[in-house]
């Protein structure tokens, strides 16, 4: 299935774009996606944290992704 991942802050700089289109296996989990991204973009290893949001909320590692989910990569936040 195809995922479109929104990118913000330093994640946008690391990937080099505001979003990333990825072809992944059906039933890919959040944790598998994070592992995949770390492999493709080693600079993510240097971040203090890297989380995935699914449909506008933080998602746990075991959550299974679906094609129409709104998925975003969340590097360490620093608002305020």
């Amino acid at each position, binding site marked *: 299935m195809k995922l479109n991942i*929104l990118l*913000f*802050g*330093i994640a946008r*700089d690391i990937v080099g774009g505001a979003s990333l289109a990825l072809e992944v296996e059906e039933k890919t989990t959040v944790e598998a996606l994070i592992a995949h991204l770390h492999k493709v973009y080693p600079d993510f290893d*240097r*971040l*203090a944290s890297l989380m995935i*949001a699914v449909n*506008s*909320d*933080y998602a746990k590692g075991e959550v299974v992704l679906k094609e129409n989910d*709104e998925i*975003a990569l*969340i*590097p*360490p*936040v*620093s*608002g*305020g």
Partner: protein
Amino acid sequence: MEFKITDQPINEQEVIDLVRSPHCGGLSVFVGTVRNQTKGKKVISLEFEAYEAMAINKMREIAEQAQQRWKTDKIAIYHRVGKLSVEETAVVIAVSTPHRKESFQACEYLIDTLKQVVPIWKKEIYEDGEIWVAAHP
């Protein structure tokens, strides 16, 4: 409850007037402004970026937590995005409660928690470079 992400300058008065209430004696406001230095390094400007839909969701979530815990009456949170100069307002949080102690506690909880969970990112721009704040350990 009112939440807003905006690329326009924030008018603090507008946010305060949103939480004014006949049931309340206390109204606490926190205004986060751009400081001219971080750890001794001169800051020229800041750039904020938000994942807007989720940021509004998380603001509502933390406001509901504050509402339950301190029985707040009204809460408003405005956060600026885009490029900001020194002294400009990045965030305003306003809370009204019947008695003042709760307004302070809820307001401090909201800014502390916003900084931890709301998906907004800050880039500090120096004379000789820039950095995404808190990105690296």
